[in-house]
């Protein structure tokens, strides 16, 4: 059943649908002398059913881009569209609803409410919305996340990898249009990281889920379909069907360019 849905979402005959579109996005923090412009006009289309990575050196604006695209932060200029919804003009209240109903989140750390057990955490966005989970879908997600008997445990009793997988399951269970993940494996060892990435990958392949992941780890980025490179608040290049080697290469060349640019500037 879910595979049907996945099929439907990535119908190859039709042009790929856009899940999210960012246009000419500018984000400036602060004002006057201390103003920092973290995004200097970014435009990006996220295709539906694709796993996209955003990479770039520290401070290049990856997190900022993700926060703005996910409606967590206001933008200075430009537009953010999620499906047909323009986020930049929404009121706080509607924005909250959009996040709740259309967006899933996985953060680097502190993803779970410590007082709730794994299952309650997974169901949290649904219960907040007062919706009943689709039982079959829920079982499917749970089966994929592979937590088995640990669903009744609280976050404190789970390993870091397990916690992140619970977070992924939570992001998935409400069937959002898009999932944003900010360095979801940043705090994990490579085995646990691989488990989490594998899970994300499967949800793209099996369920047609759209995922945008911020990372600076080439290994993590190589699990994706497309890697977008940011530097100094601008998109500089992108890769399709990346491998760790190609990613590293690109990063190196970008570093060089970056240094060149700085030297010349």
């Amino acid at each position: 059943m879910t595979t049907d849905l996945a099929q439907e979402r990535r119908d190859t005959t039709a042009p790929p649908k856009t899940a999210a579109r960012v246009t000419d996005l500018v984000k400036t923090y602060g004002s006057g002398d201390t103003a920092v412009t973290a995004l200097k006009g970014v435009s990006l289309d996220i295709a539906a059913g694709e796993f996209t990575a955003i990479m770039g050196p520290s401070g290049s604006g990856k997190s900022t881009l993700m926060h703005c695209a996910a409606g967590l932060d206001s933008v200075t200029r430009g537009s953010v569209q999620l499906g047909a919804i323009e986020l930049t003009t929404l009121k706080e209240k509607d924005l909250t609803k959009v996040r709740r109903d259309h967006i899933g989140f996985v953060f680097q750390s502190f993803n779970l409410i410590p007082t709730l057990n794994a299952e309650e955490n997974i169901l949290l966005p649904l219960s907040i919305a007062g919706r009943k989970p689709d039982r079959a879908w829920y079982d499917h997600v749970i089966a994929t996340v592979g937590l088995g008997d640990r669903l009744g445990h609280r976050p404190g009793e789970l390993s870091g990898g397990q916690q992140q997988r619970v977070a992924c399951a939570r992001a998935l269970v409400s069937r959002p249009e898009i999932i944003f993940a900010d360095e979801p494996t940043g705090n994990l060892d490579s085995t646990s990281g691989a488990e989490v990435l594998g899970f994300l990958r499967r949800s793209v392949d099996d369920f047609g889920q759209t995922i945008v992941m911020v990372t600076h780890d080439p290994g993590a980025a190589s699990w994706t379909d497309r890697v977008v490179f940011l530097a100094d608040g601008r998109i500089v290049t992108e890769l399709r069907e990346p491998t760790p080697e190609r990613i590293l290469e690109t990063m190196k060349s970008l570093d060089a360019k970056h240094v060149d640019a700085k030297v010349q500037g």
Partner: protein
Amino acid sequence: MLRASWKSLMARKLRLFMSAFAIILGVAFVAGSFVFTDTLGRSFDSIMNSSVGDVVVRPVAGDVDIESQPSSATLPGSLVKELADVPGAARADGNITNFGTFVVGKDGKLIGGFGPPGIGINFTDGPAAKGLEPLTLNAGRWPTAGGEVVVDEKTAEKAGYLIGEKVNLVSSGAEPRIQAKLVGIAHMDGGTAGASLSIFDTGEARRLFMDGNDTYTDIWVSAADGTSQAELRDAVAAKLPKDVEAVTGDAAAKAAASDIQEALGFITTFLLIFAGVALVVGSFLIVNTFSILVAQRSRELALFRALGSTRRQVARSVLFEASVIGLIGSIIGLGLGVVIAMGIRVLFGQFGLDLSGQSLIISPRTIVVSLVVGLVVTLVAAYLPARKAGKVPPVAAMRDDAILAESGMRGRTIVGTILTALGAGLLAAGLFADVPSPTYWVGGGILGVVLGMALISPIVGRPVIAAIGWLYRKTFGAVGLMAQQNAQRNPRRTGATASALMIGVTLVSMMAVFGASAKASIDKAVEKEFVADYVVSSAVGTPFSTEVTEELAAVPGVDEVAAFRWDQVKVKGEDRQVTGIDPSHIGVLGPTPMVEGRLADLTTTTVSVAEELATTDKLSVGSTIDLTRGGTTKPFTVGAIHGDSALLSSDYLLSLPALESLGGAKTDSYAFITRESGAAAAQVGRDLDKALADLPVVTVKDQGEFADEQRAQINQMLYLIYALLGLAVIIAILGIINTLALSVIERTKEIGLLRAVGLSRRQLKRMLRLESIVIALLGAALGIGLGVAFGVALQRSLADDGIDVLAVPWPQLGLFVALAGLVGIIAAWWPGWRASKLDILRAVTTE
């Protein structure tokens, strides 16, 4: 280190203010009660100093206190001349004083009321002690003939009389209604504290108050130059007949002032109790605040430890913060205390006790005690958190995860249980056993139980939280679940916060149960034992002239009238209550269970003794006992032994003539009236009212009105107590606000995460509100449980003193629960608002 503490203090001003608030209130009550008591004392000292002569000669009164009837023993007029000739005496003046003479205002209302007396005196130009002029004229002249009166300035002003006008007065003397021309207005140094003074010519005073005899109530002897009060007293004493004493003015003034202070001492006690409640509640708040602050700052503290601070230095830095809060709180509290004292003074003015003539006295003792109390309570409360701060391991500075190990609940449970049991034991002993000064036992017991319960509240509270949590989950889903979990997350914190509310609710529920029981007992007594159709009583608390009783007997439709007098006698040195009754109308006073004999048979030489007393003193019909009243002692034969009834529960019952033969005044405390069968109730009621129309000092009530009046008195007391306990509740609200606000800060990341995954601001506020309500309801549940238990115990212990019906006002207790819920909602408002303004990204971005 101290500099760092100071900085952290300044960074948390608002929060610290909230914890200091309890200290402020507690200290304010302490200071307020001291300031007021001192002011009261000073103003009565100065009044009393001009109310005595150098030597006061008076009938030996024993120590009848001011609440019982004044002695009718008098001094012969001839004594005045004799004493004037005593060596060392400059002059002697006879005084006539009556304590039941009130001026009736132009609007027909009585000037003054409960408390301060209406005093009728004769005019003499004799000086008070040390040559003071007791009274001076503001206008007009002194009275020189019958039908003339001078009143004090305040009374004249309130009543609205001008010189030359006819003044209406009512009196407990031979003439209940007096009309006299106002010929002057008098001034008394230091004011009259609300008492009204009516000054008559000596002949007129004699006629009004001394049955026309040449007698006086006391005599002032003034010292000639060079004679001391003591010398004069000794000289005077040598000349005195039996049962008459001479005291120096200084001693008499002091005794009178301290009598009054003692009578008003309940105010001080009352205020100090509330101060205690506020401080206990406040210390909970401080413990909580500092525990949370220490927990939140544990990394910072660990850093200090890692950098080489000793445990003691770290603990001391926390105590330093506490002492700053304690000191600031105490200083503000002191200021507020003065305001409270002013407020009480105004309040008393409303009830007639006018102290505006005396400025407020802020003695050094008040300042020292206030500051010390505030500081000590704060430091004691902060001690445990400070110790905990010292225990933060240096390595915690480098670690991210939970740092402060929660110490186990076991020790706490044991201590709490022991404390509760100990308190319950003290309470039971104070209420039911024959221990000295039971009030302290009861107070200590309540404190013990409350503190013990506060300690074990995290455990006792579990089922309450679980029950509320179940309801929450059913009703509010995830939001409800999280609210419950948050409340359970730190059981101690929740317990301490709830306990602060528990204390107020405990006391309020206890008083509610007690009040309801008292009212139910009155209703039952009135219904079962009240035979009379009407009760005549004084509107000012002082007894009224027997003339009034006689007049009422003549009203058409009145069948029987039974006069009734409260008084006090001494038997074997012990103060005992005595009631003077009319044996020929004994039936009007309701059924009295008799063990032996009949009350109707009481004569001028027989007495009825209460059953209990008869047993302990081994008395039976035929035994004799000596009763002493004032200076008079007379033997009485036990003629009857009575059981308890609503009206006749005094230790001794005497016939009216027997009481008079002991020197009891011819004034009645009550008169009970029955209607002739067949008389129209409404008509008789109207006629009685009419007969008393010009005597505002006396009122007549039918059964229902009488019961209402009694109930109203209880209600008044309850409302006053509720109002003051309301302050304890306000402190508790601040406690909840504080805890929630600190929790919000602690949970910044969590809140951000919730908001990121779609929790709306409204839902977030609701979550905090629900958590707050859990805390408040927990406090209410514990408080009502304890309060009802205390109330029942109190009622049981007073069952023999007339509170024999237990009534638990469930609807009212239900209302308290609802109010507690409201308290929760209010308390969550500000933390909720702050939480909803938190930046979502603070949670999402990792530092």
